[in-house]
């Protein structure tokens, strides 16, 4: 039995309630149910998560690295777009 025909899935794990799901890697699985179980075994066996999302990799549209100049460089010299001029109360976490 090979996995060469199984599609690739991207795995997102939320490490605890209140935090967002983060991309942690990818794996092969025949369908979404198997992808969830595989993700549980591959990415949360050391107590890393409380929730898992899986999405088939082909459904992700990625930006083209060739366009990085026009997409991202204009943001580099605009420091005023960062909200660093406000004092945040200590109670506000995960900003």
């Amino acid at each position, binding site marked *: 039995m*090979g*996995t060469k025909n199984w599609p690739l899935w991207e795995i997102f794990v939320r490490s605890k309630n209140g935090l967002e799901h983060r991309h942690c890697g990818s794996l092969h699985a025949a369908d979404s149910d198997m992808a969830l179980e*595989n993700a549980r*075994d*591959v990415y949360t066996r050391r107590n890393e998560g409380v929730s898992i999302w899986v999405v088939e990799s082909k459904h992700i549209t990625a930006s083209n690295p060739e366009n990085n100049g026009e997409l991202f460089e204009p943001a580099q010299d605009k420091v005023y777009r960062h909200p660093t001029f406000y004092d945040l109360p200590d109670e506000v976490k995960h900003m």
Partner: protein
Amino acid sequence: MKNENLYNYLLGIADNSLILGQRMGELCGHGPSLETDIACTNISLDLFGQVRSYFQYAGKIVGDGRTEDDIAMLRKERDYKNVLLVEQPNTNFAFTIGRQFLFDVYHLIFLAELQKSNDLTLSAIANKCIKEVSYHVRFSSDWVKRLGDGTEESKAKMQEAIDALWTYTDELFHQTEADVAMVAKGIGVDVTKLKEDYYLRVGELLKEATLHVPESKWFQKGGKEGIHTEHLGYLLSDLQYMQRTYPNMEW
């Protein structure tokens, strides 16, 4: 020996997890895919964790200084009390999954009853193990369905594995002397009462997997009394190699 019946009873439970854990551990680096390889070895580690709880307790109640490691590593083949089912080899992935499924269903209903034991240590161990085993049942059941209701080849292999392993299922419900003594004290589970529920659950799942329930009424037995199939000796020579070659070695 002090508390001999309870000691033997604990070994009867724990040896199933030990031997099955060793079988699943054999797949480390050899699983059919990276993902199933990790899944199988995760199950193996769950089972070894359970074994530690039982053997630590067994060492304590005997009270002659023997440790969990002594109990796991230094017995002879005839002193292992696991059922024949769990020592059957990883012939192919369908056999690995079939063996796991046929044991998991039993394991889950057994632990549900063991939680009611009036031995508080045993009921606490059962309470901890049952979450792990619920996942094992889900994993192995899903694979039985996938392979059974899969391609022509996977269906044939899954059916072949179920047919071959079926003869080892009845032994799960045999009582040993230690079983009878512990049931009488309200410590042990009366496994004879689990049989009907077991075959009902297994039958339903097999049906869902478009497999047929084997009709053979002839069953193997002996593991619980220490009479094993030829496979256990080879398994133990792997399991015990380090302790036999370098006695008292630690790491």
